[in-house]
């Protein structure tokens, strides 16, 4: 493994949920420990199964893994960290300030923002604690600061610069301002991250076009803040041998080859490792020890033979579309983490509605502009538009500087500019663009995908705050106004659909998204489990194993999470173009069934 050659002290594994970064981090830790290095493994995965993998209860304290000499582990739960922060801040004032006031503050500190920063706050100590540097040769993190957090990381730089220059207090540091850590410690943590002799970043991806594009963006964002020493790991590649006798497996294999063949340039330059899809579940030390092996681990696979026929009869997307079409108009919002296929599903639903002669406006904020490709061909009743987060943000910044900044002196303008660099700005800018579009939903269908979760939640937070503010200003009387939040909360006007994959981490992420929506008074209307092997026909042993593990996950969606759900099969051909989108929506029969 290239990424394990001459490893520096800190290794960060990053990638979207479900790509296997925790497994790879665990396996890497085991391998380094086997080479007699002293290793600390840090998991911030809210669905951390590190303890389960090693058969030890770990939790938020450094715990020795007795089965692996030299290895200690620590689990940071971002939610618990955020709760601890709220308790620290509010504990001393409970009973001393009015209850309503305390409750109001608590709500303010319940956003995704606080959670991410609280987790980062726990991080900084690990990056800067001199005692840990003595105790451990390597510290491995199964996550890395990305997206939202990157921008926060950039802020302390601006912050300290601003303070050093004596220009006053750059204010929009959000919850960072309330955390107890020294500014010097944040700066040291950022320095450690940007120091290539100390830090290596491992980008974990699957061999999928959209995923690789997303990873390329992460790479560029992180490189821009100085994390230049990056490695790429392509996980779960379907072995060539598997593609011989099965049409679906052959199609997946060909697709993966194609995706890797057109690897984004910035990624192609990175040292790269490939890890084959394994025929066994990555549970237990023995499985981890063999994760990086070339062969498929035949003995382990044999020990876990598929017991039952993993085929599933589940509701199809067409069933959901029938219910949607019956309303004649409304707002349909696809939500979920990046890479679960929100854009494709939104496009499929739009095409299916338009095909029935219903007027549809499909709008997307997919930064990859993937939709333009997907919508290769048009229908008369379908309008497509795109909200580009970068463009919207720039426009918003300019507009605020021109209007609100106009009356300020130079110093005041600088302060406002600093605040406009805050992470909230993009969410607000995108939200404003959305709220312009969603007003149309009284007349026709408006179908939207949304950008990844952090965005979505903050958008909803912003709407919620706006709603409360308007209600407050109106003194609770005369509720004859409609905020976007109220539109989203009204099931007659809005259907929120959560998109996910039939895998543990994506489903946990979707459940946590649903919990946040519910906190905002929004009840998701349905879930769509996308790209499922369990409803596809295949005789490939590897894929059938995956199908078997999917059944449990889909069962959990059906019984625990979703009011109603649909399962969309993994297709042989990528659903690009109107014809294939209609197939995906179940409007026309799937042309290609695999031989079985």
């Amino acid at each position: 493994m290239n990424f394990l050659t001459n490893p520096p002290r800190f290794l960060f594994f990053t990638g979207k949920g479900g790509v296997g970064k925790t497994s790879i981090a665990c396996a890497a830790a085991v391998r380094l420990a086997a080479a007699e290095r002293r290793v600390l493994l840090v998991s911030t995965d809210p669905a951390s199964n590190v303890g389960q993998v090693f058969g030890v209860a770990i939790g938020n304290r450094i715990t020795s893994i007795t089965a692996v000499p030299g290895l200690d582990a620590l689990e940071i739960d971002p939610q618990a960290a955020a709760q601890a922060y709220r308790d620290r801040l509010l504990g001393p004032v409970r009973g001393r300030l009015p209850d309503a006031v305390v409750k109001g503050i608590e709500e303010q500190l319940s956003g995704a923002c606080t959670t991410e920063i609280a987790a980062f706050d726990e991080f900084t100590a690990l990056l800067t604690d001199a005692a840990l540097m003595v105790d451990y040769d390597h510290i491995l993190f199964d996550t890395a600061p990305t997206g939202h957090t990157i921008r926060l990381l950039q802020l302390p730089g601006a912050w300290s610069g601003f303070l050093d220059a004596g220009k006053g207090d750059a204010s929009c540091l959000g919850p960072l301002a309330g955390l107890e850590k020294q500014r010097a410690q944040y700066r040291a943590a950022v320095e450690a991250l940007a120091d290539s002799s100390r830090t290596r970043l491992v980008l974990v991806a699957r061999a999928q076009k959209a995923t690789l594009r997303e990873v390329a963006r992460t790479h560029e964002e992180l490189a821009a803040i100085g994390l230049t020493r990056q490695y790429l790991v392509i996980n779960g590649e379907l072995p060539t041998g598997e593609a011989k006798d099965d049409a679906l497996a052959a199609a997946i294999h060909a697709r993966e080859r194609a995706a890797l063949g057109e690897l984004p340039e910035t990624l192609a330059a990175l040292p790269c490792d490939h890890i084959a899809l394994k025929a066994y579940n990555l549970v237990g030390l023995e499985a981890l020890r063999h994760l990086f092996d070339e062969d498929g681990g035949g003995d382990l696979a044999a020990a876990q033979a598929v017991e039952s026929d993993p085929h599933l009869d589940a509701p199809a997307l067409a069933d959901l579309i029938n219910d949607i079409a019956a309303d004649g108009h409304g707002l349909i919002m696809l939500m979920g983490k990046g890479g679960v296929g929100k854009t494709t599903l939104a496009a499929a639903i739009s095409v299916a509605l338009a095909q029935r002669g219903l007027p549809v406006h499909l709008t997307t904020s997919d930064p990859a502009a993937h939709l333009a490709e997907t919508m290769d061909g048009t229908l008369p009743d379908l309008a497509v538009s795109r909200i580009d987060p970068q463009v919207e943000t720039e426009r918003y910044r300019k507009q605020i500087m021109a209007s609100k900044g106009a009356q300020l002196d130079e110093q005041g303008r600088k302060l406002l500019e600093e605040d406009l660099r805050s992470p909230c700005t993009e969410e607000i800018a995108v939200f404003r663009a959305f709220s312009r579009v969603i007003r149309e939903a009284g007349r026709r269908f408006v179908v939207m995908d949304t950008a990844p979760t952090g965005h979505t939640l903050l958008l909803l937070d912003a709407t919620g705050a706006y709603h409360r503010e308007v209600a407050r200003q109106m003194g609770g009387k005369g509720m004859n106004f409609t905020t976007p939040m109220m539109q989203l909360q009204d099931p007659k006007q809005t259907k929120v659909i959560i998109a996910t994959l039939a895998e543990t981490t994506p489903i946990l992420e979707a459940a946590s998204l649903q919990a946040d929506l519910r906190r905002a008074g929004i009840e998701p209307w349905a879930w769509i489990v996308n790209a499922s092997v369990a409803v596809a026909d295949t005789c490939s042993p590897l894929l059938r194993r995956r199908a078997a593990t999917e059944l449990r996950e889909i069962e959990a969606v059906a019984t625990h999470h979703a009011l109603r759900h649909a399962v969309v099969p993994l297709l042989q051909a990528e659903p690009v173009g109107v014809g294939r989108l209609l197939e995906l929506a179940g409007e026309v029969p799937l042309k290609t069934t695999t031989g079985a």
Partner: protein
Amino acid sequence: MANIQIFDPALCCSTGVCGVAIDQALVSFAADVDWAKQNGVQIERFNLARQPLAFANNETVRDFLERSGQEALPLVLVDGQLALASRYPERCDLARWAGIAQPAKLEAVAASDCCSGSRCC
């Protein structure tokens, strides 16, 4: 010199740009505070969402919160005495409390910004 303390409602930032509707008063006030600091004025801001203890530890502020609720914020104390509530002070208020003059080059802006009408100055 007078000590000016501003007790803000729960904000995520001092200019309020993080909200959906930006309040011009907040944007201007952030700039005014900055201006006052540059001119050596002793001025502190406390954000209810970040420094609730500062609110709880000050009897005047605590009583005010109990009586009027957080909707009545912001609250301004000058040398510990209640000076202004429910709205942000103008730049000229700050100058008056601190006993300093406004720089000449700002007067044109300030005239339209804060000294129109009878409410202040």
